[in-house]
């Protein structure tokens, strides 16, 4: 299989995805439904990752002093602030 050219490699990967999920066998409207569901799920996943794991919109002094708490700490901080209002 010619893996040198990227478009054909990507097409081949897409074909493998089709085969594994058996969407190769589906009628066109079923494929549309399935892909839109998959893309929606993927989109939601990416959105969740973006919001939770990259706290770029929170000001520095609200970072916790304990560096072990990790990315979820800002969520709990912001939740606490919201609840105390």
């Amino acid at each position: 299989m010619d893996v040198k050219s990227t478009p054909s490699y990507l097409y081949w990967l897409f074909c493998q995805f089709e085969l594994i999920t058996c969407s190769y066998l589906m009628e066109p409207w079923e494929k549309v439904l399935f892909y839109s569901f998959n893309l929606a799920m993927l989109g939601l996943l990416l959105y969740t990752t973006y919001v939770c794991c990259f706290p770029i919109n929170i000001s520095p002094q609200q970072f916790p002093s304990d560096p072990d708490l990790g990315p979820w700490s800002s969520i709990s901080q912001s939740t606490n602030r919201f609840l105390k209002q």
Partner: protein
Amino acid sequence: MLVAVLTYVGYGVLTLFGYLRDFMRQWKIEKCQNATEREEQKDFVPLYQDFENFYNRNLYMRIRDSWNRPICSVPGAKVDMMERVSHDYNWTFTYTGRVIKDIINMGSYNYLGFAQKTGACQEAAAKVLSQYGAGVCSTRQEMGNLDKHEELEKLVARFLGVESAMAYGMGFATNSMNIPALVGKGCLILSDELNHASLVLGARLSGATIRIFKHNNMQSLEKLLKDAIVHGQPRTRRPWKKILILVEGIYSMEGSIVRLPEVIALKKKYKSYLYLDEAHSIGALGPSGRGVVEYFGLNPEDVDVMMGTFTKSFGAAGGYIGGKKELIDYLRTYSHSAAYATSMSPPVVEQIITSVKCIMGEDGTTVGRARVQQLAENTRYFRRRLKEMGFIIYGNEDSLLLSLLSRIKYGTFYNSSCSCSATTGIIVMISLSLGSAFGREMLKRNIGVVVVGFPATPIIESRARFCLSAAHTKEMLDTALKEINEVGDLLQLKYSRRRLVPLLDRPFDETTYEETED
């Protein structure tokens, strides 16, 4: 492991879509094209709600175009197929009128290449057709016993090395109609896990108790035999009237050869009877094509009932049973097939007679011997090349059926000197879409293969089977191998990692010294 998970993912997705489609059909959003109950019967017990019907409607319909493909020429090494298209996703088919010519035929059981329209067999059959006609119009016990049948039976008995033989018109019916004549209530049948449907049907029809032992596993068989002898019949504890062991010479879906010496040793030790179904192995195993008994170098008189079919290696149709004279005389009187089924058609009988004589060498040429050797060479070559390409092969080294993605069989014990080997190859696809994709891609490249799925195989293992033939030349095999290579790369079927994987039939449960865990 990952592959199995992915297969389940695929099946899960299709099942969900199946439920969606069923919902739409029920609420009349979509036109219902499959069989349903009538309006008046909607309140009765539902007929089409079980898994098999669900599978049929939703999964099988999507891939149906790889099955029941009509051919329009003799199924030799190359075959012509009628082209058909479907405009509504395989619910109906229409023929375009075009014929796809010269498809390399890797799907017919034409092991020795006797399915020809020219040659000695065809001429003899044509002569007999002009003498006797095509129909017999009677059963064996009434007016249907021709002298041709007597000649055939004597010849088959001589070929197999048994005292006497009887031939029937249909291979499936040979098994399913004669096992009930041999065993009945109060007898025990020990049948292998992977026996063919005809053996299973015959066993069930007979009314005997059936116990199943693990595939080719002699420990399991011995345990069952011991239990049977010690405990007898379940409630009354009387001894069993007869114990019959049903095995096949070669199992068509696995490619494994039965461990005949061990089975015969067990049979003699526990005084039971052996029924050997040589449908795939007769004509193809053994140096002179006499089947699995010759392959192991055993005495044909040790096997009590030797059954086989004429469909696979002899290019005809029908089956035979061979054994002692008293047994065959009993079957002539008491078999359902002899009493009620029409006897074999004379041209077919002549085809078998000519082909058996050819294999034995009695027609004065060495064509038969050459064919058997050609088959062995073809299979060894094919097997070796597939392994080199990275596919994993199922089945015995010498076995008739070799399957890809498989567990290399431990049974190299018997692999030594015999010149015969396998005639078919099987690729295990693992999933449905891969199976149908393989079938379609191979047809696009002008090679016809048989893809087998549920319910003939377990649901996560569908297979593609290659049946080799003595009629295939090396060029045809090379072309086929090249295409298989391409399609294997395209569909990612090459799972070989150069490691032995534990086998399906494990002769010893405790020691597995030749296998490494996956």
